[in-house]
């Protein structure tokens, strides 16, 4: 709080202006010196800024439209060869060999396993870390932990994949002897570790933005730290916390490199998590980098699965928007 007694010092120009006659001139005098209220010409500087900002905004809109257009046309041509029913409900994904089969479920399953597995690890641990950093840690601990977490968020994902292959999987194999070298479990764990800093740092920001006066109000009612945190701070910062979950989950859905290294590239509708799987993104990379002819049906599959991925993220976005609005309405 700034004490009221503290004197404000104004720059000299301002004080001299305050004391000069300029401010006391009448309206007619003002117009005499040219302060007309009529519109002048276009303000070119402002126009230039406005249009360049508009142009930047337009870029992302156009990009989105182009992507949707490409996905739609290529998928359309794919579905003229493959029935959408077979695609959506088929359980075999064998696009590159004969006899081919285009059931997307194994890829979709791979993506969902990694995403939800990672979220199941990262959300509780990330939120707990955020709560610790924001509500319990001393300033000194925070100044150490926060940059470390941010650093962790900046590590290239291929490193996480390598970490899975050389550390997580061997450790897990000690516990689960039947575990494949490439397995979904290890993929989910390592992607969970990867998105954890995102959740922790963004949720920490959201919790720290909760005004201290609310905490004090709660403490003054005889609440314990735990009650203040769980019943006042987290609900108040919930929209920011939810946003961090969403961002982290979208990273998990799109994650490619770490997953490929950890979970392999075998489309597989296996529910044990101990075998290799393939996610949608990993498949797209595999085909794009391979020598698949660009005009064949095999090549078109990547647009069809990309369209599925696009719809998946779209649904997730709408869902989270709905959740956010619901909590907003209740909490502010």
């Amino acid at each position: 709080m700034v004490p009221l007694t503290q004197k404000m010092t104004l720059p000299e120009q301002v004080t001299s202006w305050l004391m000069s006659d300029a401010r006391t001139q009448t309206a007619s005098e003002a117009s005499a010196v040219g302060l007309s209220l009529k519109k002048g010409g276009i303000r070119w500087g402002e126009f230039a800024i406005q249009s360049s900002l508009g142009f930047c905004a337009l870029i992302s809109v156009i990009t989105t439209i182009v992507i949707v257009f490409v996905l739609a046309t290529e998928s359309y041509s794919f579905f003229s060869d493959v029935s959408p029913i077979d695609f959506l409900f088929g359980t075999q994904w064998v696009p590159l060999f004969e006899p081919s089969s285009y059931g997307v479920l194994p890829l979709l399953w791979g993506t969902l396993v990694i995403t939800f597995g990672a979220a199941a690890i990262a959300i509780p641990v990330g939120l707990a870390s955020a709560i610790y950093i924001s509500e319990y840690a001393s300033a000194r601990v925070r100044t150490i932990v926060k940059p470390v977490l941010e650093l962790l968020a900046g590590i290239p994902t291929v490193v996480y994949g390598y970490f899975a292959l050389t550390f997580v999987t061997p450790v897990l194999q000690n516990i689960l002897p039947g575990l494949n070298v490439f397995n979904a479990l290890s993929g989910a764990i390592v992607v969970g570790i990867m998105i954890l800093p995102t959740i922790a740092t963004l949720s920490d920001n959201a919790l720290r933005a909760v005004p201290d006066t609310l905490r004090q109000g709660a403490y003054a009612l005889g609440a314990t730290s735990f009650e203040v945190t769980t019943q006042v701070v987290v609900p108040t910062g919930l929209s920011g916390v939810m946003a961090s979950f969403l961002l982290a989950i979208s990273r998990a859905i799109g994650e490619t490199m770490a997953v490929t290294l950890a979970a392999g590239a075998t489309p597989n509708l296996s529910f044990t998590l101990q075998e290799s799987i393939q996610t949608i993104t990993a498949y797209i990379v595999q085909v794009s980098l391979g020598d698949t002819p660009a005009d064949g049906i095999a090549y078109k599959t990547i647009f069809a699965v990309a369209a599925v991925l696009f719809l998946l993220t779209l649904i997730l976005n709408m869902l989270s928007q709905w959740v956010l609005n619901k909590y907003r309405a209740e909490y502010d």
Partner: protein
Amino acid sequence: MTSMTHPEQGSESKHISIAEPSILDLQNVTISYSGKAAVRNVSFPIAEHKITSIIGPSGCGKSTLLRALNRMNDFVDDVSLEGTISYLGENLYGKDIDPVTLRRRIGMVFQKPNPFPKSIYRNVSWGPQINGYKQPLDDLVEHSLVQAALWNEVKDRLHESALSLSGGQQQRLCIARALAMSPDILLMDEPCSALDPISTSHIEDLLFELKSQYTIVIVTHNMQQAARASDYTAFLEMGMLIEFGATKQMFTVPRQKRTEEYVTGRFG
């Protein structure tokens, strides 16, 4: 305390007695932030079921002193307290005192209304609920809102967000929230500073009503409010207690020259 040769410039240093039993007793209380004293060697009693106001210029340590009374200063880094504050004979800062339990008995209303972003109902019921209140909450919520003179304005919208209320209503909600705990003592830090004159007079009327059941300590910058509403007044300056006494005496025949200058507005 340094010895003063001129009594009218000195501070209250002898033990001050009051007619009523005291519920809180401050003895040589010094509070420092990072070793810098904000409240220096202050001693005065707080009478039970009376209103005690703390006045003084900005930065003189009023809020610091008030927050010491329910240990809200515990949340400030590097703050230390010397001397004793006893609550019904028990040292508030004793090793065996649980500050959480203590704050249930000594409630606080803050300068700026700080309702939780929950419904009006939940704002009032939350404190009792977390503290294991077992009786029907509806009655308690109604009773507290009636006591805070807010019931009629909100009885049809109890489940709307507290943030939809006006500033004055929010402040009365915060008072209701504190009253729902039925504390022994209610600490109020400039509760009217963000309010218009009508809401302010609402709250002052409220103080009179509450006096029969609660002990109230109020920090205020408003001399009329202190004069009108309180029974005892403590005047602080630069962390020191300049004068403590019955409000009527303080505002009519102050013992210290500085008090007179301050309460009459001739304060440098």
